[in-house]
């Protein structure tokens, strides 16, 4: 039997789209020089699995994503807490952050390339820089919107500043912080692929580009679609973790994941 969460109507639509694609190519209804049919992509994908190329490239990209995401989250969390807790820091430094934040991270890639050449460092710098903003903004927002009443409670119960932070402020801001973690992960995936295409010739991003240059459209589409699946899987892991952490928050907080 299929598990209860399995979305049968949604899957049917998806399969119908794939079948239409296959049909359109086979019947000659659509003719692009380099648009492969789904069946061709599947064959190329199985070949990549068998040769071990997919595994090697995925291992590289996944490691970059996870390392970059952890660093981005840690920095974003720390900055978000500092800015969220201190009106003084916000007054002096938020304007600088607001200037820096909208600059597209990808525009920094040439600068990183110049400094660190084609390397993992370049890739990680781009991931961390882009990935820390969602975490920062959500953490700061979560902390500043902790109800004033909870600060009153911390004070009347004689909690030290550190204890109030750990037992009241951070848990109260946890739903927002967890959303930040998830958004940072999404950004990390995108930036890892772009950095591999342009800055660090390894991993899935580079594999897409080299399949393109080698005129292997089936292989290229196989990699592109696999990156999509990887992003969905990573997000699903975080949603599950989030549900677990927010169990006990009750009344609708955990459900808008």
């Amino acid at each position, binding site marked *: 039997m299929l598990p209860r969460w399995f979305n049968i109507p949604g899957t049917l639509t998806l399969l119908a789209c794939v079948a239409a694609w296959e049909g359109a190519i086979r019947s000659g209804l659509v003719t692009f020089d380099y648009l492969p049919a789904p069946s061709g992509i599947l064959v190329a994908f199985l070949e990549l699995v068998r040769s071990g190329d997919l595994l090697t490239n995925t291992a590289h990209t996944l490691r970059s994503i996870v390392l970059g995401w952890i660093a981005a989250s840690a920095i974003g969390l720390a900055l978000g807490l500092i800015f969220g807790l201190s009106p003084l820091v916000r007054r002096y430094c938020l304007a600088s952050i607001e200037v820096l934040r909208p600059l597209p991270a990808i525009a920094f890639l040439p600068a990183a390339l110049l400094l660190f050449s084609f390397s993992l460092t370049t890739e990680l710098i781009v991931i961390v820089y882009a990935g820390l903003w969602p975490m920062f903004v959500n953490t700061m927002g979560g902390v500043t919107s902790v*109800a004033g*009443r*909870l600060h*009153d*409670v911390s*004070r*009347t*119960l*004689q*909690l*030290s500043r550190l*204890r109030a932070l750990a*037992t*009241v402020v951070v*848990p*109260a801001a*946890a739903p927002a912080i967890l959303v930040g973690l998830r958004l940072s992960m999404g950004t990390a995936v995108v930036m890892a692929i772009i950095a591999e295409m342009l800055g660090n010739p390894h991993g899935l991003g580079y594999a897409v580009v080299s399949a393109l240059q080698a005129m292997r459209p089936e292989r290229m589409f196989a990699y592109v679609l696999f990156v999509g699946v990887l992003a969905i899987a990573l997000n699903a892991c975080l949603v599950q973790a989030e549900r677990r952490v*927010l169990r*006990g*928050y*009750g*009344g609708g*907080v955990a459900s808008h994941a």
Partner: protein
Amino acid sequence: MADGVGERGQTLFECYDVCLELAHHGGRRLIIDRLSLDVKAGEFLTIVGSSGTGKTTLLRLLGGLVAATGGSIRFRGAPVAGAPPGVVVVFQDYSNALLQWRSVARNVSLGVEGHLDRSAVAQRVGEALQMVGLERNADDYPWQLSGGMQQRVQIARALALKPQVMLMDEPFGALDAMTKAALQDELLQVHARTGTSFVFITHDIEEAVYLGDRVVVLAGPPGRIHKVVPISLPRPRDQITTRQAPEFLQHRLDIHNAVLDARGD
């Protein structure tokens, strides 16, 4: 004496000519005007007044949650600067004041868990929950409980600190009449058993008379003391017989008139 509730009759709070002025639309606005008041150990002091008379502000001043801009507030002889140890505030909006992600027991332990070892914390929490009749709800979450039960959790959290003074800001204002009566009697039992002093704000005159040793009637704005009425009713008090006693009705009438009077003051 540090951990005790204080010798009965000893003065705990001394307020002298307390003023509070806050910034308001570019100017300054006087919220509390030269208010002087004592709170004695073991006393149940209730405060009534129309809205805008600074009831909540007075409580926040006593609890060290806001600093006076004039006069002096002392707790056991020391000037109040920040929340004084031994004093704890219970807020009206229990659902905002409880940590919704913590179980009942872990809400009650919040104020003591940093200071006592695990078994001592468990014992304090158990005693506090028993005093408010929630020992069977220790593992529930606040959002699973009714309003009255949530307010009991907040009271238990304050009791777990073994405070000398509990400052309560219209704690039963959002509850239905039956729950309110039950909680009033539980509070009187706690008062009798522990000797804790209470400063209890309410807009319900009958509640003020039923609970209090003295009723303070505030006038304002700006908030100031209009009248202090000693309540002569004997303890223990009872929802039926006390409320039918002629003295109760007389006190109720006097305070009602005083509140009306304070408006024209």
